[in-house]
């Protein structure tokens, strides 16, 4: 099992990187933690490290901007994220295997492949998040996860709305050493002690993370017990849970509903 690389380049501008990417057999390199597990040949490996895409900063218009070459461990220890939503993202990141892996894995390499098992995607989907590509521009994360891209492109940034949110992430694994078999994330906006705009994401279904939009609609009316029960029923109808070699879809669904009930209880209380 090995990833072979014929030629390696470090372009100096995004424009150059994009035009190189259009060549046949050209691919962007993230940290290569996942890419290296495949057995294939990359004709032209494009390393974006000279493009300044590793910056994490707060934008003037209230978004946290995260460069696609930022390492997961850069996010984990960044002061902006430590204080945001009660340290929700550093908590989720600390569940992605080891610090040494997170020191190599990049945000781009975690978002672009739209992996079903991802913990990070479920978590950021439960926040108001957008993703930016060099040519395809900026789009909501939920749209990118659902539709993907029509053409080869370079992810430049992930943008998270910096607002007062309470957020909770829960997951189930066969062991801490395994991938999540199902994961859920719930967040709610808090303004003057009132709750608004609950976002519910379910991932590792085993398909890629998805928003439970019907349940989110129900909770716009009220956050009382009756509405929470109605929202959970809506999740059951709306979200598909499939089988894989780890668990059956039925079991996944049962566990997801329990995790969601707990997560909703925590953000609402």
């Amino acid at each position: 099992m090995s990833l072979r690389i014929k030629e390696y380049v470090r372009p100096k501008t995004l424009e150059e990187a994009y035009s190189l990417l259009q060549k046949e057999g050209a691919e962007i390199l993230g940290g290569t933690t996942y890419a290296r597990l495949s057995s294939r040949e990359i004709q032209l490996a494009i390393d974006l490290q000279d493009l300044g895409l590793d910056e994490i900063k707060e934008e003037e218009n209230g978004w946290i901007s995260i460069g696609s070459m930022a390492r997961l461990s850069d996010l984990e220890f960044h002061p902006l994220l430590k204080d945001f939503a009660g340290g929700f993202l550093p908590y989720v990141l600390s569940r992605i295997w080891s610090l040494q892996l997170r020191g190599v894995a990049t945000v781009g390499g975690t978002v672009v492949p739209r992996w079903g098992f991802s913990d990070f995607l479920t978590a950021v989907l439960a926040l108001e998040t957008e993703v930016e590509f060099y040519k395809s521009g900026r789009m909501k994360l939920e749209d990118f996860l659902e539709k993907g891209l029509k053409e080869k492109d370079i992810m430049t940034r992930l943008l998270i709305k910096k607002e007062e949110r309470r957020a909770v992430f829960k997951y189930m694994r066969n062991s801490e050493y395994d991938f999540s078999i199902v994961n859920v994330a719930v967040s709610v906006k808090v303004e003057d002690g009132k709750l608004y705009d609950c976002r519910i994401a379910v991932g590792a279904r085993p398909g890629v993370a998805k928003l439970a939009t019907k349940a989110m609609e129900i909770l716009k009316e009220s956050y009382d017990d009756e509405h929470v029960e109605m929202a959970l029923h809506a999740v059951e109808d709306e979200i598909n849970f499939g089988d894989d070699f780890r668990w059956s879809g039925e079991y996944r669904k049962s566990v997801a509903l329990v995790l969601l009930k707990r997560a909703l209880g925590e953000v609402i209380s």
Partner: protein
Amino acid sequence: MKIRVKINGQDRSFEIDPSEYLLDTLRKNGYMSVKRGCDTGSCGACTVLLDGRPVISCSVLSASVDGHEITTAEGIANQMKEYMHALASEGADQCGFCQPGLLVMIYYLKKMIDKGLIERDKETVRRYLIGNLCRCSGYLPQERAIFRFLGVD
């Protein structure tokens, strides 16, 4: 292709293949503390510091470290004598294969704890060591030595 790196404070340059990983480049050039356990990113035996942060060298392309700084267990062993004494007095290691990667992690954790970026408590330290597998010790004697060295109660 040629890369230039600083390893344990020394400037070095190597001729590498674009498909080569840092673990192989380091071992080929005499940094034998860097071990190959799993080669899939799971065991931590290949841990080194890249520009000061811990990474699994089996998953870092050698080409990508051109112009960067690397620290292996060889480079910090002298500063880790107290830790080594703690290991010895707890009878912590058996074959010792996991130790160079673990030593690099402990060196890093100590710095982060001292700066207040990682909490000095048992659960936190255990969580940050999840990626350093040991197939012999059963972890408990290593853990006693690590907690003692880091001043964790």
